């Protein structure tokens, strides 16, 4: 008897609006496979039995009370509680079935019977209930089963849509903003920033020279639907070398339905006379295909401090991103591309020549250069471009497993312009191009009690430092290869208790080619330890090729326990190993804003950090608090410190070098909220932190001072869509700081004198008052419109911020009024 290849025909009757015919292909495959095995005999008998089991396509759960109607014989049977039905006395023929259920679309399927058969049928839920599944899933897709993760609400996210990622994240207690001027800012979590904080977008960590204090993340947060954060290295899936924390930017998968929707936000701000427009559109189809496009255009001029204009602080931004994909529930593919381009002016007065200029700037109350208002950005400035392209594919299997593979490419180009003489003024002083390729794959399995996620990653990174700048390279050329694997598991025996464990192992190979100037080579006596690696020598420089290998293992474990329904406790322990950055090992250059020469230390070892985070969450009636103390200790913790002076034709400059120390950082984050009545809600979030070197007890630099923010939210019952927020932020003076002051000898008014260069003393504390009014959403033609009016620094307070590197030169921004119009299409 020949093997018969069955082709099942699927009848396509008048389709209801939501229909899951697209899954029939899958069912067909399943049928083919299962029937092939049973198709050896073929006889005309009518004593065959078809035993079927009807299951939910998404979670494999049996569907009871489904109606099975045999069209050829008008026979009807129902499934039992286990989803099982039996059709007796069937003939050897093709029978056509219609399987229907209250919450599902009808499934029309033909079955070729030639012997007694048992098989499974998968029913697809209606879109409405499907949505629930997807929503629920995204809820389940927690970053960590045991560590507290923070999510920005849509209001919080949109409110800061025009002001950068760090500013948006600053609303979370324990998160600060390390800035350079008014626009360049990067998130600082529990006193750590830069390479110690991971920013993950679309599943890969952003590679944009994040080591630099004045390098803001080159990503438009508006291209993502969700911004989440974990304080601590809690997401080993994405990174194992970020003891500070992880910020995860993610896009939601669009609905499976024919629809077109979007959001447009228009922000206008008085300070800087800026305007930006952000728009995102998603077109999705019944087939699961979708297309998403998002863009942003931003133009901002010079900002104003209460007493003067901050010349050359304008910025422009143009971003665009596309993604195209198809969500078939059981499988999903996506292709994405994005381009980010930002030009940021740096306060003109902050570009100085030597230490004496720095002393003068510190002594002056006002910036030395104040020009009329302008939207034009001149040197000094940064021009950053970031391109991303990626493709990902994921597939679920019937046993709640999901496999994902992803390739992504990133190209980051950073150009920094200094004030230079004549022909060089339009030539970048720093021109770095970083190409990163990431290939990752992972398998994730969720069970009722256990779930695990494991994967492997490969990253190849190529950094090119353009020599045509005419200034020695700040960062050498290198190729970095990283590969490794991770495994995370969590056990939740009950809803009240979960345990988590994970590890990530990474092997890193850096091939670095760096030029050392002979003078530096001699003073540091590099010949002894690096002499063997010299591959070229001449013109006062030595080219050294080194291969540096680091093997790092990061671990974390934690538990989360609901002692009572209103009292939740979690404890997490993170052990992190981080290979030193190329910048920490090899940087070599002059910083014009701080008049310092920075040198890397090529002999640094991996930095290890242990961090303990406790989180207590309690609800007492209308009062809720979240109390989170943490402690971290670092070995080989890499810091930069002044170590001496170097003489140049411009005078003597302090030299800062990287060094490894043992460190301790501890702090407390506290969030309180009290719902006084249905109209008024009071909330507070505060954070206190201290950090110092273990042996010498010297405080660490750039540790945020105690900060507390109080908020009163007020809503009126008659005006359902009105919300008013009054907020007050106080930041105390940081009294724990390392003293890096030094003396310099200058001639002033004909007399040589010594002057103290006070680069360490933090500025006074400050208090800021803000107010927000939110109206909406209201119907607006076929769309919905919301309007917000936001006042920052309402009292126009003059203040300086310890965490701003340009604090020596000018005050922070004064009062700002922002009008935000948001339209949901």
């Amino acid at each position, binding site marked *: 008897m020949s093997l018969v290849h069955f082709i099942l025909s699927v009848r396509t009757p008048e389709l209801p609006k939501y229909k899951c015919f697209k899954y029939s292909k899958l069912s067909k495959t399943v049928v083919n496979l299962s029937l092939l095995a049973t198709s050896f005999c073929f006889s005309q008998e009518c004593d065959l039995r078809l035993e079927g089991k009807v299951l939910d396509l998404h979670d494999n759960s049996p569907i009871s009370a489904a109606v099975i109607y045999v069209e050829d014989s008008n026979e009807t049977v129902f499934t039992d509680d286990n989803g099982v039905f039996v059709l007796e006395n069937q003939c050897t023929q093709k029978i056509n079935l219609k399987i229907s259920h209250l919450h599902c679309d009808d499934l029309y399927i033909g079955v070729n019977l030639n012997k007694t058969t048992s098989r499974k049928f998968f029913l697809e839920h209606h879109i409405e209930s499907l949505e629930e599944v997807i929503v629920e899933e995204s809820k389940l897709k927690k970053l960590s089963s045991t560590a507290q993760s923070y999510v920005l609400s849509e209001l919080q996210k949109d409110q800061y849509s025009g002001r950068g990622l760090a500013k948006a994240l600053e609303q979370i207690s324990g998160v600060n903003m390390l800035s350079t001027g008014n626009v360049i800012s990067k998130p600082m979590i529990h006193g750590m920033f830069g390479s110690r904080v991971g920013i993950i977008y679309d599943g890969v960590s952003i590679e944009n020279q994040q080591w630099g204090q004045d390098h803001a993340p080159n990503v438009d947060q508006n291209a993502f639907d969700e911004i989440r954060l974990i304080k601590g290295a809690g997401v080993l899936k994405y990174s194992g070398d970020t003891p500070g924390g992880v910020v995860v930017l993610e896009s939601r998968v669009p609905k499976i339905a024919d629809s077109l929707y979007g959001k447009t936000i228009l922000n206008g701000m008085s300070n800087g006379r800026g305007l930006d427009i952000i728009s995102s559109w998603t077109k999705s189809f019944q087939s699961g295909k979708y297309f998403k496009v998002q863009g942003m255009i931003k133009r901002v001029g010079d900002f104003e401090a209460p007493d003067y204009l901050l010349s050359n602080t304008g910025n422009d931004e143009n971003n665009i991103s596309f993604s195209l994909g198809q969500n078939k529930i059981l499988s999903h593919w996506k292709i994405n591309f994005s381009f980010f381009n930002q030009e940021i002016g740096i306060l003109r007065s902050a570009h100085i020549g030597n230490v004496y*200029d720095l002393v003068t700037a510190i002594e002056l109350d006002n910036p030395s250069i104040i020009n009329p208002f302008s939207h034009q950005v001149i040197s000094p400035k940064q021009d950053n471009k970031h391109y991303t392209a990626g493709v990902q*594919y994921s597939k679920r299997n019937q046993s709640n497993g999901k496999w994902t593979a992803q390739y992504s490419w990133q190209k980051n180009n950073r150009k920094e312009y200094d004030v*230079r003489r004549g022909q060089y003024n339009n030539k970048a002083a720093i021109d770095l191009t970083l190409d990163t390729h990431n290939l990752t794959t992972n398998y994730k399995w969720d069970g009722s009690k256990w779930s695990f996620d494991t994967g492997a990653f490969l990253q*190849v990174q190529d950094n090119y430092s353009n*020599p045509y700048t005419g200034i*020695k390279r700040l960062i050498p050329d290198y*190729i970095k290869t990283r590969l490794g694997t991770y495994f995370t598991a969590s056990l939740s025996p009950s809803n009240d208790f979960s345990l988590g464990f994970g590890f990530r192992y990474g092997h890193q190979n850096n*091939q670095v080619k760096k030029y050392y100037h002979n003078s530096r080579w001699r003073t540091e006596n590099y010949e002894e330890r690096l002499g063997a690696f010299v591959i070229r020598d001449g013109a006062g420089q030595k080219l050294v090729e080194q291969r540096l290998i680091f093997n790092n293992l990061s671990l974390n474990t934690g538990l989360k326990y609901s002692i009572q329904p209103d009292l939740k406790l979690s404890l997490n322990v993170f052990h992190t190993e981080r290979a030193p950055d190329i910048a920490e090992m090899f940087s070599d250059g002059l910083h014009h804003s701080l008049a310092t020469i920075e040198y890397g230390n090529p002999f640094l070892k991996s930095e290890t950090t242990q961090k303990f985070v406790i989180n207590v969450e309690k609800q007492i009636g209308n009062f809720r608090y979240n109390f989170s103390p943490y402690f971290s200790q670092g070995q080989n913790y890499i810091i930069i410190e002044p170590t001496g002076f170097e*003489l140049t034709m411009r005078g003597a400059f302090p030299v800062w070098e990287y060094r490894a120390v043992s460190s301790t950082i501890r702090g407390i984050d506290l969030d309180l909220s009290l719902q006084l009545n249905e109209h008024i809600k009071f909330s507070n979030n505060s954070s206190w932190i201290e950090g110092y070197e273990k042996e010498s007890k010297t405080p660490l630099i750039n540790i945020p001072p105690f900060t507390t923010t109080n908020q009163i939210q007020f809503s009126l019952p008659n005006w359902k869509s009105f919300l008013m927020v009054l907020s007050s932020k106080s930041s105390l003076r940081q009294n724990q700081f390392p003293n890096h002051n030094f003396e310099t*000898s200058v001639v002033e008014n004909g007399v040589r004198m010594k002057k103290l260069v006070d680069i360490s003393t933090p500025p006074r504390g400050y208090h800021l008052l803000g107010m927000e009014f939110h109206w909406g959403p209201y119907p607006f033609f076929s769309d919905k419109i919301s309007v917000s009016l936001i006042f920052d620094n309402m009292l126009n307070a003059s203040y300086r911020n310890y965490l701003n590197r340009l604090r020596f030169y000018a005050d922070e921004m004064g009062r700002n009024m922002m009008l935000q119009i948001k339209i949901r299409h």
Partner: protein
Amino acid sequence: MSKNIYIKPIIAFCLFILIFACSKDDPDPVNEEEVITKVTIEITKVGSSNPMTYNFEVEGHDHDNEGEEEDHDDDDEHEGVHTEIELEANSSYNVSISFYNDSDPADIENITSEVIEEADEHQILYEITDELSGFSIASASNDTVDSNGSPLFQKTTWTTTGETSGEVIGYLIHEPTSKTGNTRTDFGGSTDVEIEFEVHVE
């Protein structure tokens, strides 16, 4: 259909292999174009034709011969290179200052002409300490003036009276905020060059 799905990762993987196979090319050395590494002051007594030349270079500079390096005390408050200029009392001197980039010894670049060309964006300032009394520096008649008629002080006349000695600091200021004043802070801008020397009038 499902075959297609694997093609992309495979292509990506091949790309990786390709990248792996490549090694980084040797980077070109950076030719530091803009830095001033050497300053020269040429002093000619009025009526004489024998100029005296003083060079200011950073010690430990890559082209210094190691033997020539002076001992430099790190605690010395005057961090500069000590150059002593001997002048006669009651005399006038024509002085010109020049700036060079000699990071590439094969191609020493004279930056002075550039400074002169961009006189509007530059200012040379000699700040004389009080102890050096009776000594003055004025713009020479052949000095460069900027578009506002402000002298650059590239060519100067130094006038001595009685015996005295003291320090002079020379600055090349880039983009000064003001072109008049007596002391460095009056000018603003950023310092491109700072040299110091002792003047002995005997």
